[in-house]
């Protein structure tokens, strides 16, 4: 009788956990893909971070330096590498693109394009969606 009760309890807990996972909302991992033909790269940061290889990464950043005249010299960049080891790097000093980089958020989807000749970024996109947020952030429900 005692053994049966324990089994029922374990089964109940397992069912509860399974239903929680099933009700966690839409998840849409996007592994990093670098397309050296069309000169685009994209992927979400979380999928890149936990990819089953040592290659994948994606992101953008801004560097600002005091120019000694009361202003700053700024440039930004985006970079990515996919699981095949294909890499993409672009840079920009376009203020709107720099603003886009600075407005990015954690865990989002990043995509960018570049000009092959100058290696300058021609497009930078960020998408902050619930389906990119990791499950361990914590629920408010």
């Amino acid at each position, binding site marked *: 009788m005692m053994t049966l009760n324990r089994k029922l309890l374990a089964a109940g807990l397992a069912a509860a956990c399974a239903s929680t996972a099933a009700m966690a909302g839409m998840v849409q991992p996007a592994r990093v893909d670098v397309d050296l033909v069309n000169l685009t790269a994209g992927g979400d940061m979380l999928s890149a971070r936990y990819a089953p290889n040592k290659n994948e*990464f994606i992101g953008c950043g801004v*560097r600002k330096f005091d120019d000694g*005249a009361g202003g700053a010299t700024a*440039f930004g960049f985006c970079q990515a590498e996919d699981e095949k080891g294909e890499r993409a790097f*672009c840079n920009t*000093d376009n203020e709107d693109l720099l603003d886009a980089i600075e407005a990015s958020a954690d865990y989002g989807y990043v995509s960018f394009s570049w000009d092959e000749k*100058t*290696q300058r970024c021609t497009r930078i996109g960020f998408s902050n969606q619930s389906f990119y947020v990791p499950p361990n952030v914590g629920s408010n429900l």
Partner: protein
Amino acid sequence: MKWLLTLSIAQTALLAMLGLRVAAIDLETDQIARDVDAARRIAEAPAPQTPIAPARESASSFGAPLLTAEQARAIFREELAALDIPAAQSATQAKAPAPAQTSPEETRRMAATVAGDINYYKGVGAISPPEMEVLQTKIAKLPLDERRAALTDLAKAMTRGEIDGVM
């Protein structure tokens, strides 16, 4: 509002201090002018039997022309004005520092250094994050066109896998 009040009080106090200082300088100027007048009178007087103060004796012994009180005041005003100008200039410079001027020769030298660094990392085949920070700092000091060219070279080398690393 409190800030404005505080600033107003501070400004009033500083103006009062400035006024007192100007008044003190004016008094000193008058005193010196009187001394100069006295020295002139003594020098113009017949040879005295009494000893002359060393400072006045040395002044006349150089044969320097003696000044009237008005001339002395004018000289002091000029000197004070000359002191005021650099102070005003330094205040302006503090607000708006002069932009960094780079000569074409210096620009070429800096660009060549950055190009040399990128070639070095191509040879090594990799760049570490601290090395990247140093390189980016050097690149940032270049004028716009040279900076863009250097970033293009760097990004191309990294995309091609000639330099392993991240920005």
